[in-house]
């Protein structure tokens, strides 16, 4: 390994760069001033809806009796609020399905057209980006938000089913999807800085300065080059220039990123995850699905804890996925999740319920880790995170959009009590959940979302 590589590794290990240090300092300052940690926002999506008879708790509003599919959430019951009565209101007058459902749930608006048969074009930003942009509580972290996924394979190439987050459209009819990142190691390197295995290096101060100068010269040229291009392109191309500029700003933070290990606010750089084979075009078994999901959610946990990110979306897989489960129980009719799901026979419903229970269990395990991180005010990371557990359709086998199987987990320090079933007396549009969180937790004056049938008002009783 040449001197440059050694010096660079040394630099990234030893020097807590601007972004990382600022995050730690903020945390330390906050606790010194008695200020509470921020309330993070996390949407966790599992695909293909649910089997309602096995998902919705029985009984009326009040303390929760976990249903069979929700049983794995038992250790989190005190942080769990299940909502029964929200409808996903798709207004585009065409077939409802995974693609339309995904975009409708996350943006809350009518579509701006579509490409091909079902690739619906989001006409607005997604709720996480709305909150990130407008809430002072979510401002100030190094990277703002991160969107991750465990598996993105689909049987048709469509954006709408494999994206949760969208930025504001740059122009009418043009969507700005934030494609989820799939490789935990790549995400890790981008947010936490490249991992240097092995023992301490002995780079000199000179070598450290050289490495810093190298990275700075990359950024300088990139910006200069981008400026020149910006002066040459027609107005319609500016969106690409602006997006690249934002990407370079984040790249700078990735370059700076190195965290002091241990001590201080208790924020610890996690261990680097391993690399997974790129599956993007393979069929067959996916033995890593749970492991990748766990690592991704672990990165989100660490990124929240170290205040690198305050909003996040995580997708287990698209509604149109081809994930296989290797037989969760003896006699399971098909291993793949989505393709054979459009069947309401008892055997099919049992299969769908088993898969959803698996997703519930993996998610519960990951969120249990959010409870073990203690923040400066003594509450857990889970107490300071509003997690929304949702799917892109309500009922799996026929894409019915009524009675969405949605739950809120965490957020105790933001006024969200747990161990509750909220059984709504009348049906309400799904966006009412977003309005309640926006107004009452994040201080965003979002009075409406979507067209009139898509909202009625902030869901009462969710936030104290």
């Amino acid at each position: 390994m040449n001197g440059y590589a050694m010096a660079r590794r040394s630099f990234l290990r030893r020097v807590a760069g601007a972004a990382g240090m600022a995050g730690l300092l903020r945390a330390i300052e906050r606790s010194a001033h008695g200020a509470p940690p921020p309330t993070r926002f996390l949407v966790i999506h599992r695909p293909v809806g649910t089997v309602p008879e096995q998902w919705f708790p029985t009984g009326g509003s009040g303390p929760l009796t976990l249903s069979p599919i929700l049983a794995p959430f038992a250790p989190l019951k005190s942080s769990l609020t299940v909502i029964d009565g929200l409808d996903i209101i798709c207004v585009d007058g065409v077939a409802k399905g995974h693609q339309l459902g995904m975009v409708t749930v996350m943006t809350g608006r009518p579509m701006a057209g579509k490409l091909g048969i079902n690739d619906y074009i989001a006409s607005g930003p997604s709720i996480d980006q709305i909150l990130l942009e407008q809430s002072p509580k979510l401002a100030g972290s190094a990277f703002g938000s991160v969107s991750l996924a465990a598996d993105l394979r689909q049987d048709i190439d469509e954006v709408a089913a494999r994206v949760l987050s969208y930025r504001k459209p740059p122009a009418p009819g043009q969507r700005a999807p934030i494609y989820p990142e799939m490789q935990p190691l790549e995400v890790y390197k981008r947010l936490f800085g490249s991992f240097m295995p092995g023992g301490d290096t002995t780079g000199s101060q000179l070598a450290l300065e050289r490495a810093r100068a190298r990275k700075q010269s990359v950024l300088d040229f990139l910006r200069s080059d981008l400026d020149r291009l910006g002066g040459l392109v027609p107005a319609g191309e500016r969106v690409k220039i602006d997006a690249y500029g934002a990407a370079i700003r984040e790249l700078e933070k990735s370059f700076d990123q190195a965290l002091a290990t241990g001590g201080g606010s208790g924020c610890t750089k996690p261990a680097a995850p391993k690399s997974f084979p790129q599956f993007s075009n393979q069929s067959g078994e996916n033995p890593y699905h749970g492991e990748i999901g766990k690592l991704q959610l672990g990165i989100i946990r660490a990124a929240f804890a170290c205040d690198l990110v305050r909003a996040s979306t995580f997708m287990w897989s698209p509604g149109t996925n081809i994930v296989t489960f290797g037989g969760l129980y003896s006699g399971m009719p098909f291993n793949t999740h989505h393709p054979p799901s459009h069947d309401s026979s008892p055997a099919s419903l049992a299969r769908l319920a088993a898969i959803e229970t698996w997703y519930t269990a993996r998610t519960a395990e990951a969120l249990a880790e959010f409870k073990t991180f203690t923040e400066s005010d003594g509450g857990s990371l889970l107490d300071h995170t509003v997690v929304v557990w949702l799917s892109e359709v309500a009922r799996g086998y026929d894409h019915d959009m009524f009675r969405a199987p949605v739950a809120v987990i965490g957020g105790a320090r933001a006024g969200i009590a747990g161990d509750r079933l909220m059984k709504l007396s009348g049906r309400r549009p799904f966006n009412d959940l977003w309005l309640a969180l926006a107004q009452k937790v994040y201080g965003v004056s979002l009075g409406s979302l979507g067209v009139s049938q898509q909202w009625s008002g902030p869901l009462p009783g969710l936030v104290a």
Partner: protein
Amino acid sequence: MGEIAGSSPSTADPDPVDDTATPNDPPPPAMGVAPDGTACTHLDPVPRRLWRLSNAQYGNAVRDLLGLAAAPQVSGGASTPFTFFSADSEVVSAPLAFSYSQVAEAAALAVAPRVPQLAACAPGAGEEACAARFVREFGSRAFRRPLLDAEATELLAVYRTGRAESFAAGIQAVIEVVLQAPSFVFRSELGARSAEGGHSLSAHEIAAQLSFLLLDSIPDAELWAAAQDGGLLDEAVRARQIERLLDLPAVQRNVDRIVAAWFGTRRILVAQKDAARFPGFTDAYRAALLEESDLFIHDVLWTRRAPVHELVTSVNTFVNPELAQLYGVRYPAGTGVFRPVALPPAERAGLLTQASILGARAHAADTSVVERGLFMREAALCLDEVPSPPPGLLDSPDIQSELATLKDERERAVFRTTNAICSTCHGAIDAFGLLFEGYDAVGRYRAGSGQVVDTTAVITEPPVLAGAYPDALALARALADSGTFARCASTRLLSYALGRRITGPPRCEVAAVHDAATRAGGGMAALLRALTQVPALRARY
């Protein structure tokens, strides 16, 4: 202005105008006359644009610039293995920018031992002069255009930053920066103002257009030379370059890839089959189906240089033992795993009846008339898309209860095409799919095992093909004989070259390419020769 001030070509615009003020709305396409005398519409004008390299193109470009053994893999961005072309609307996101920086850094480190060859310094030449030369040569090859003096100056400063450590580190620093720069990552199609109004691609931009179309990478040495001396602005020079390129194995492989993407052969990799009905549908089996299609495509296009319509009619394919069994032919003697066979002409017709296609366009346990119908519309006929079903229709109890009583795909198709609501769309889909009912969910020929299947259908579009057909083979012959498939091939490849879907009215450029290609024998080389000379390829507004 695509040509940077200070460089040679005479198309550089002498009067500076505000080239950033392209009209927001595209000018309407002009009307024209096709070679056969019918009216046609020109292609929708393409705006001056930046077109981000696809992840594959980025990797190939890095490989070719540095002479690496393999293309590095970039992660992030939108494209999937099924994407036909990478859209020009794609931007560089933060994860993608980070991935570029990782790849750039790794590539620069990887070539450290070869710096003396890459930055070939003549003995006795001053080191900084050598570095300056490297910056100009490497930078301009990477950016696919001459460098501005300002860029050369800045990159020399980058060199000096690394030079503080060593000459090699200085060169590596330049490589690392260049491989993640916007000018590397975006193809520029900004052009120079042309006499007719609008803009026209520069010689360098034409070189990049040809190389990214045919090589899926940066211009090779000869194409670069023809860009540097402005030769590519001349049709004859372009023609010579295209001739040369079409003989390169790398180009032929790339065109094979484009055709495979157009037909969506890779979808077989994600097709799910009922394990009880179709045991043995393993990953290895799927890969074999894909390999058959790849070998078939290459054989039609380049080994035999057949007219492109043989893609949907030829029975000459390549099988391993399992495929031989599927197709009901004897696995021939010979060498290698995949061996050439001629399938029974009464049973098969090109890609349309290959296992990779039929298996992907089917359900887990049964055929799918709708899937196969949509495939034919899209891949073989270039017909407009049919919208998806309206809300509530699929769930309506009447429809559900009716469908439950029907026993096979034929009965379901009859229902869909006679029901008042369903037929508005299915009238345009199902007939095509019914013609393939002779092949089961994994592509076996049903009559081969004694099954009697009704494979007849009446199709109504395009008008030139309207009529009754006994089976898919008859339609395949008609597709070939009428030139419909060849015209569709021209459409698909022109879309790919421009990175734009071509829909709507008959297009003059498609007609011109199709006419020229047909006159020259109808092969892929003829098609590409004609396509690459289409003026619209080089015009931007």
